[in-house]
């Protein structure tokens, strides 16, 4: 079996030798460079734009603005393009950093220089700079993803239940702008061949990008090829088509050469997605016996002035704990902000910060252990659907985590644990993430040299899917993983699920599994029908496969290799397709992944910065395909959320709303020295109700609940409850 083994990544050697090629590493003959020029104001209008100096600058081949851009041929479909207008739409400016021109030149230095020579006469209007300033505009969003992601929901009578509860809490939590900050800036290499366009793009989802690009340019989708083999981190900011892609494409058409456009880090921070600021009000009621009675959760998040984009922080509220009554409401408020993008973990990340913190506050109010409060409100069924979870090992996660962490050493009240100059605090939270599906296709080819190839479009963004999909195909065909090649990240390949939303394992993995099984079955059928095969005449279902060989499961000695079978039959290969149909999920169940987080923080009493010295994460995600990559991804998810909890804040100027820290120098993400001992384990129970492989998504659930676990530990350490992230030193001052 390849599945379950800690195989090294299939692309590991390329990644350590520099041979791994990312979008900006790809070059074509005659390639030239584009740079983007951004608005200096947050709201207003371009009264005049002077490109003469830029056009006259050395090496410049083209300068494109709203005045001379080619016509766009469609209007953007919600969320597939990031905004409701294509770039350089007109003279109006709706956010700081909005792209106003693209400059193409012979070298990178020339393009960057000329972009700085584009002069704009602005008519400036006052901006709505902050969420607080936008609050009068709070309104229910117009949103096309109901009901999967509801924005208004009521179950039972929360007001009455709250009024009757023994203990009531009314709490406000805040999260600021957060940035995905992947290491790789967004980039495009666009080139035309006659009427066909190839776009090398930093994308998590080549097939979803294609119709957007084709639509904007007025091309049939089959004239557009999108290639994204390796992506240097994404975390959601590469799940949509952004302005630079379309601008690179039109620039390449105009200059008649391949155009590379790599956005600057400042532009990544500004115009390529973020999680918007959110204010959450939670009211929770519970009885003295520790039973939760009701919860209401009202959120408002910033949205661009031109369209509504709710951040569904209410997503965990109604489904994580047993509650008699639930009321949730999501509102948005328009700001002059660039477009947000889904960010690890959309909705659940900020939502579980609030819910997980509120549960902790309630545990103190009831003088109950926080785990005990959660146990008493454990939920066996999805309350809105009324269906049991297909597999839920949350209680085991609590047990395993508490044991590994040493939770029994926790003092019952805050400010009771001290080690020298340090306050010590323990906190915990549960984790949950609904399992989402998407249609996915894959092909598996068994070749006459005994090897196999997997083909599916899913880009490798760092999650390890090249490796896990290889393992799946290896087991499905019975061919060693070292003999299985994989091709990915290209619209010429079968359409996978997007590499986002923790869908790869469940959806794309199932498609690969089915394709591999079908390829093996086709080979088995060929063998049993072939009089020269030692397997001739057997029922096909009695044929097994292992180590590149088909064999009789009753008499394993009897069999032959794929190589012999195919060569004898003059077949170069056998290719079969697999299709994962999301509509095929068993309707008797609800699907999710679960986990529990335990955090130890230490806070020096004099210099109060939170240090996460130990963190234990235990997750129930069904079967673990590759413990090596899974452990790495889980640790990474925890640290990603640790950044959000303790330091990440894309700060804004209160007058203009402009981000004042659009640099990795100033937007702090965790560094190596911030990371303590991160212990990851799994309660591994295959969930065959969810998927035929028994494996579910991993990349997001690991990051859900971390913020609350840390905030809860901080409270436990020093008795200060921080409800607005990040928990920076200024919020922990000595009284």
């Amino acid at each position: 079996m390849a599945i379950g083994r800690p195989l090294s990544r299939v692309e590991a050697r390329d990644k350590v030798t520099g041979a791994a090629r990312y979008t900006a590493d790809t070059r074509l003959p005659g390639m030239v460079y584009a740079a983007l020029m951004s608005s200096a104001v947050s709201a207003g209008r371009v009264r005049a734009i002077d490109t003469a100096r830029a056009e006259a600058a050395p090496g410049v081949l083209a300068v494109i603005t709203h005045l001379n851009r080619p016509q766009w041929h469609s209007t953007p479909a919600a969320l597939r393009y990031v905004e409701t207008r294509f770039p350089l739409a007109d003279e109006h400016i709706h956010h700081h950093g909005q792209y106003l021109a693209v400059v193409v030149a012979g070298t990178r230095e020339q393009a960057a220089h000329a972009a700085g020579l584009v002069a704009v006469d602005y008519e400036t209007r006052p901006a709505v700079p902050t969420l607080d300033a936008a609050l009068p505009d709070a309104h229910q969003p117009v949103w096309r993803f109901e009901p999967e992601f509801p924005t208004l929901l009521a179950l039972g009578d929360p007001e009455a239940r709250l009024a009757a509860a023994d203990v009531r809490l009314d709490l406000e939590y805040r999260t600021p702008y957060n940035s995905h900050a992947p290491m790789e800036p967004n980039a495009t290499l666009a080139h035309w061949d006659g009427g066909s366009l190839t776009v090398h793009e930093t994308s998590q989802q080549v097939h979803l990008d294609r119709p957007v690009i084709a639509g904007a340019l007025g091309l049939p989708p089959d004239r557009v090829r999108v290639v994204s083999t390796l992506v240097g981190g994404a975390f959601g900011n590469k799940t949509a088509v952004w302005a630079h892609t379309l601008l690179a494409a039109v620039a390449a058409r105009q200059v008649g050469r391949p155009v590379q456009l790599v956005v600057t880090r400042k532009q990544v921070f500004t115009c390529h997605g973020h999680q918007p600021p959110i204010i959450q009000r939670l009211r929770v009621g519970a009885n003295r016996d520790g039973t939760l009675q009701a919860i209401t959760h009202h959120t408002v998040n910033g949205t661009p002035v031109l369209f509504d984009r709710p951040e569904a922080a209410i997503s965990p509220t109604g489904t994580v704990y047993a509650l008699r009554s639930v009321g949730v409401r999501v509102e948005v408020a328009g700001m002059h902000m660039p477009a947000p993008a889904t960010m690890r973990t959309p909705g659940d990340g900020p939502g579980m910060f609030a819910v997980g913190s509120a549960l902790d506050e309630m545990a103190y109010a009831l003088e109950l252990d926080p785990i005990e409060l959660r146990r008493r409100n454990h939920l066996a069924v999805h309350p809105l659907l009324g269906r049991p979870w297909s597999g839920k090992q949350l209680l085991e996660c609590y047990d395993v985590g508490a044991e590994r962490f040493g939770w029994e050493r926790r003092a019952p009240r805050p400010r009771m644990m001290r080690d020298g100059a340090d306050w010590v605090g323990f906190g915990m939270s549960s984790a949950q993430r609904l399992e989402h599906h998407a249609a996915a296709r894959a092909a598996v080819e068994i070749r006459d040299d005994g090897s196999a190839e997997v083909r599916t479009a899913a880009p490798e963004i760092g999650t390890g899917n090249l490796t896990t999909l290889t393992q799946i195909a290896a087991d499905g065909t019975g061919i060693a993983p070292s003999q299985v090649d994989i091709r990915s990240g290209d619209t010429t390949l079968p359409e996978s699920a997007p590499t986002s939303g923790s869908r790869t394992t469940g959806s794309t993995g199932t498609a690969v599994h089915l394709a591999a099984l079908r390829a093996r079955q086709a080979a088995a059928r060929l063998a049993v029908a072939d009089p020269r095969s030692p397997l001739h005449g057997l029922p096909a279902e009695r044929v097994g496969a292992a180590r590149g060989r088909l064999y009789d499961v009753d008499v394993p000695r009897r069999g032959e290799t794929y190589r012999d079978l195919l060569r004898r039959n003059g077949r170069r290969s056998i290719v079969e397709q697999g299709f994962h149909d999301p509509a095929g999920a068993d309707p008797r169940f609800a699907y999710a992944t679960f986990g529990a987080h335990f955090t130890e923080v230490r806070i020096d009493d004099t210099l109060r910065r939170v240090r996460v010295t130990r963190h234990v994460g235990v997750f129930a995600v069904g079967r673990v395909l590759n413990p090596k990559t899974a452990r790495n991804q889980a640790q990474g998810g925890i640290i990603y959320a640790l950044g959000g909890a303790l330091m990440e804040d894309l700060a804004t100027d209160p007058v203009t709303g402009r981000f004042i820290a659009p640099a990795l120098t100033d937007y702090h993400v965790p560094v190596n020295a911030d990371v303590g001992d991160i212990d990851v384990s799994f309660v591994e129970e295959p969930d065959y109700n969810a998927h035929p492989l028994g494996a579910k998504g991993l990349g997001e659930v690991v990051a859900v609940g971390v913020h609350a676990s840390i905030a809860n530990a901080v409270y436990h350490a020093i008795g200060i409850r921080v409800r607005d992230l990040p928990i920076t030193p200024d919020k922990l001052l000595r009284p």
Partner: protein
Amino acid sequence: MDTFEYKRPGTVREALRLIATHPDAEIIAGGTDLVTLLRDRVRTPARLVDINGLPLDGLRWSRDGVRIGALCRNAVDDPRLAAAYPVLVRALRSGASPQIRNRATFGGNLLQGVRCPYFRLPEFACGRREPGTGCAAIEGDGRLLGIFGTSAACIAVHPSDCAVALLALDATVVVEGARGTRRIPVGDLHRLPGDTPHVEHALRDGELVVAVEVPASPFAARSTYVKFRERASYAFALASAAVAVHSERGVVRDARVCLGGVAPKPWRAHTAESALRGRRLDAAAIEAAAEAATAGAAPRPDNAYKVELVRGVVRRALTELLVK
């Protein structure tokens, strides 16, 4: 980046001539700050004078102390320096990543630009960057900005850790110009903004920093540096303290308490030094000095927390000296 004429002189004399003969000349040494300022068009020199070919490297020890060449890299790893001036070596190590310290020089470190987002983003008004344009930070987000020595024209902070340590060591900057050599105490190198924030330091046109001289002093060996920042490493200081104490028979004869990350220049907390002099260095004296270090602080609501951080870094730094 705008283009420029690139020059690489081989002698100090030639370098001085290249600076003097061009009004828009800029000196590049390690480049670890300047290259980012060029890329963001905060600085747009017409001539770039690369001084890496000048013989300004290395440490020269004498009975009077050490002379550190302006081109000596911040990664300098010299056991004698660590023993004689612990505060300096600690400040250097906390100053940046090893990669940056391998390039960054002493001269460049002292003359690096302030850390203020409004200075570094040309979309905002900044009178330090463009004289007379005002200061967008005043109405802006000042959480990371100064609480000492600021003015209505500028509230930036100087980011150097090394400079704070050098200030505590009574170091002197040696500069050369057409009219010869002069020495500027580190404390006088940077100018407070007042209403001329664009006048950043005391160097005259055409002058070049060639060395830093650190005197031997009775308190240098008993010194330390404490830097407090938002993450564990690789970040600018929210507040830092360089302290040095000379005691005789258990009584503090002289002391230095200098602060970083809180003012437009390395900040000397004279009141805190006075609070220590003549006393035994104990918990009460430390507490008094920590409190005194905040004298003259003029925080805004959004950076008032830095006052408490100043107390904290001073308290922590002096406490470290108790065991030395």
